[in-house]
């Protein structure tokens, strides 16, 4: 239907148009107040476009296809909500700050990429929009232009481009397998499990998407980036942007066919990351860094869900992972926004202002009746009763603990001025996100036919969710008592290893440069020419 494809197209064309409009200075100056409106077409598309409708641009032989599938729609919808709220937050945030033009451009670039990736149905489009996303996100991370921001940006873009390189290789390998000229992700996923290069492709996909998703050991960019970026940017980066890679996993991995080896490996990595994030996170003092480690943990958990799906060949994992991710989009976004709000709040208003983040933070650990509990409930079905389930419970305990640590560090960052009140323009987007994060998971649960209300509300389920939270809360007491004995781990933990690598790379680079110097001298170059002539002659002779 024409109307549907127009709507689908407008989802990413509108932000793109706004991005291009930034070429004119007048438009650039007015853009901050319009940021919140950019994601509306995407939201409209999610609500109005039927699932499985698609839009193709280009010739028959090579084209870009956009389509709405169910996990994509779910993630796009909640992401659009977060983008709207954060956009509104940003327009207040930018007031009176320098260089907002740069911020706006990067913001719109990231938004276009984010929406586009959620809708992209072919590999070229996916790759392109992912690249756009990366470039925009890098711009957001370095926005403050401090030394640490530059470092975070460099680490981020380096890793992201490496990830995209791996993905490109995987895509080309997949394209070679697909019969005909199709480049659709759907067709790629279909041929993957039977492909002779399956293992290579899977390694490339897991590494590539894992890097972008912050899967341990590629997680180190997250704490750096999220603590360096401006608050609204951190919110969308941690909430919406990283989900692009989760969606990539859902779309590319052959979840319908059981691949036990790969499933186990993925689930184990994810589970490890879920716990690792907690363990490192509780040693941190900066609330943003704590949240970043929580993201490491949560993303690990989502990967574990996908891994379990692969292990069992259970297609439901796609929806479950998307559902869990959708919840995380909103919660993480709201929590990052609260960092900004609390920093502008004085002691007078502090306690009431801490309440909303407290609820949704602990909800992330699985507090009954929150979206978090619901997400965990949906995931539980896939995790079974074995090790995976134990890890899930451990992760719930740990997450609660981590979230309490977050709240504590958050309270410490409150404004020095006791009378300080945050601007209204900051507060309402934040409150709205928090409220939405509580309501939307339930709405989704009911509209996307996954189950009915009584299931997650039965007492057994409620208790199963509650006790890890209580245990986590109880553990917080000894943690804080002996907190100063904990080791001080720099944010990004293993990133320090990168410095050593850099030094080595520089040494190698210097060596190559010296060699180049020698090669560029006349006699050497002349001799090279002669050697090459002889070598080519020999090579052609040997034909």
């Amino acid at each position, binding site marked *: 239907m024409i109307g549907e494809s127009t709507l689908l197209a407008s989802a990413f064309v509108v932000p793109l148009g706004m991005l291009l409009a930034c070429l004119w200075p007048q438009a650039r100056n007015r853009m901050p107040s319009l940021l919140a409106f950019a994601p509306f077409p995407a939201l409209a598309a999610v609500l109005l476009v039927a699932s499985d409708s698609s839009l193709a641009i280009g010739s028959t032989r*090579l084209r870009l296809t956009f389509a709405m599938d169910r996990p994509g729609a779910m993630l796009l919808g909640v992401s659009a909500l977060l983008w709207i709220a954060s956009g509104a937050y940003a327009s207040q945030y930018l007031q009176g700050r320098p260089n907002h033009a740069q911020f706006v451009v990067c913001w719109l670039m990231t938004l276009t990429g984010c929406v586009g990736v959620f809708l992209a149905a072919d590999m070229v489009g996916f790759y392109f929009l992912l*690249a756009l996303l990366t470039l925009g996100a890098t711009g957001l991370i370095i926005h403050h232009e401090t030394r640490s921001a530059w470092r975070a940006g*460099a680490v981020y873009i*380096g890793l992201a481009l490496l990830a995209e390189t791996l993905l*490109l290789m995987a895509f080309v390998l997949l394209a070679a397998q697909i019969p005909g000229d199709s480049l659709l992700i759907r067709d790629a996923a279909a041929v993957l499990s039977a492909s002779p290069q399956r293992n290579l492709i899977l390694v490339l996909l897991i590494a590539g998407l894992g890097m972008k998703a912050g899967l341990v050991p590629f997680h180190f960019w997250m704490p750096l980036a999220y603590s360096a970026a401006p608050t609204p940017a951190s919110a969308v980066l941690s909430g919406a942007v990283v989900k692009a890679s989760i969606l990539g996993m859902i779309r590319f991995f052959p979840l319908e066919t059981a691949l036990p080896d790969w499933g186990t490996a993925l689930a184990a990595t994810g589970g490890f990351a879920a716990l690792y994030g907690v363990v490192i996170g509780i040693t941190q003092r900066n609330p943003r860094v704590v949240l970043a480690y929580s993201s490491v943990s949560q993303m690990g958990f989502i990967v574990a869900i996908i891994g379990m799906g692969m292990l069992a060949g259970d297609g439901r994992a796609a929806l479950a992972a998307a559902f869990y991710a959708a919840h995380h989009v909103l919660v993480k976004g709201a929590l990052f926004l609260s960092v900004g709000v609390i920093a502008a709040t004085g002691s007078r208003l502090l306690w009431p202002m801490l309440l909303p983040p407290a609820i949704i933070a602990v909800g992330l650990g699985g507090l009954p009746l929150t979206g978090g509990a619901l997400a965990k409930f949906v995931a539980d079905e896939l995790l079974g009763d074995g090790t995976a389930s134990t890890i899930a419970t451990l992760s719930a305990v740990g997450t609660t603990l981590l979230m309490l640590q977050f709240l504590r560090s958050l309270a410490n960052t409150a404004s020095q001025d006791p009378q300080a009140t945050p601007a209204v323009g900051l507060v309402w987007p934040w409150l709205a996100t928090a409220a939405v994060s509580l309501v939307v998971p339930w709405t989704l649960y009911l509209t996307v036919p996954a189950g009915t209300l009584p299931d997650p509300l039965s007492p057994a389920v409620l208790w199963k969710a509650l006790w890890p939270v209580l245990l986590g809360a109880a553990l917080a007491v000894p943690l804080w008592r002996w907190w100063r004995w904990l080791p001080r781990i720099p944010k990004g933990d293993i990133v320090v290893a990168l410095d050593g690598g850099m030094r080595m790379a520089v040494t190698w680079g210097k060596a190559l*440069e010296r*060699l180049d110097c020698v090669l560029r*001298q*006349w006699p050497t170059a002349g001799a090279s020419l002669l050697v090459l002539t002889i070598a080519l002659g020999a090579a*052609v002779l040997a034909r």
Partner: protein
Amino acid sequence: MPEANVLPDATTTDGALLVLAIVSPAAGVLLSFVLGGQYAERIAAVLLPSGLFLASIIFVDVWRSGDRLIYIVGDWTPPLGIALRADGLSAAMMMTMAIVICAVAIFALADFGTRAGSAEARAPFAFWILLMAIWGAMNMVFLGGDLFTLYVAIELLTFAAVPLVCLDGRAETLQAALRYLLFALLGSILYLVGTALLYGSYATLDIVLLSRRIHMEPATLVAAALMTIGLFAKTALFPLHLWLPPAHAGAPAAASAVLSAVVVKGSFFIVVRLWFDVMPGMLGPAGAQLFGGLGAAAIVFGSVVALQQQRLKLLIAYSTVAQIGYLFLMFPLALDTVSAELQSSGALTGGMLQAISHATAKAAMFMAAGIIYAVLGHDRIAELGGVARAIPMTIFAFALGGVSLIGLPPSGGFLAKWLLLEAAVATGQWWWAIVMLAGGLFTSGYMFIVLSRAVAPSGEPLKPRVAVPRYQEAAALALALTSLLLGLVAFGPVDILQAGRLESMLVGPR
């Protein structure tokens, strides 16, 4: 072989356009030379755009018909005479070079513009004539159907390029020009031996005739090796790149753009002609791997050394060294594993697209570097701070050029990389894929270094030393955008690169 002596070649309708493409630059050179510096710019201003128009007509003609345009010069068919032929490769390259040269001409108005009524000045006089000469020489390279004509064409190219290097007369550029000239002469003389040997064996140097007659024998082998390496030297393929960095980095910005974007492609194009058209079956796996190995080494060395440069123009020059490497990866990738012949396949299309997208992107980057130099009075990368705020459009153009070099969609670089990677996968040569991907990462590395410096704030507000004319920035941006959107040719005329190649594909060596 009596039938091989008679060519089906005959001048096609519109073949006269090919003559025009060669004659009009030549006439421009002669006319400007005699009328003097006051008119050189005006003549160029008329001829270069009409050259672009001409190139587009030829392009559309070839694309529509899917076949070659041919012109038999003097009505003497080869082997006695010379034929001009435009196949898809020539048409696409002609079009690209015309676009680049026109953009460079617009850019150069600022530095080499002549005021009406003033006395003849050296640099503008030389520049405009040399620019037209380069344009004509490139057309000759693309259209020439005879290996000796191609020799004259690349000599013409060299003689036009060398003075451009030292147009500002500083001692170091004179030295760079001398290096360039001497090494290029070595290259062309090696090429010339090859033509002598080939003529000795087949009594023709016509490309189509040769492709039918050629077979493995000692003289052909020696000729192939000498000609190829000679052309490598002129293309500055690693490790024969000694002349390129100082020459390209030292020349005035407009000249650097032409040298890097256009001139090196001339000798490269002849390599393609030689191996894909004249002797597709001669290279063999070992030779193809040698080509690929040199290309890979160029990518690694060029990129790593570029990463360590302290001056922007040198960095871009080394990036050219690396990008030239990409062009040679297509040889092993185009080699058909069964017939051991170079096939006009996706790899060829990818390689040529790489050449085209590099031409546009690199020209844009050199222009941007020239503007930066003009504004700051230096091009030290460490001190670029604040420049992005002073001249945002220029930095944007530079960044877009970088996007194309890195190979992000929708740039032409992406499409090229995709096609080459596809070929690598199809032929199971994964090592070239690794090199290509690593090269992309290196490229993003040096682009990040430059852009992060440019975006960073400066200590004190930057006072541009000169006011940069708007059209200069626009020329750079236009080229960068061309390069960025080049990937969209996938929706349209990408097939043109294969146009008119059927025949030479079918008649390989026996």
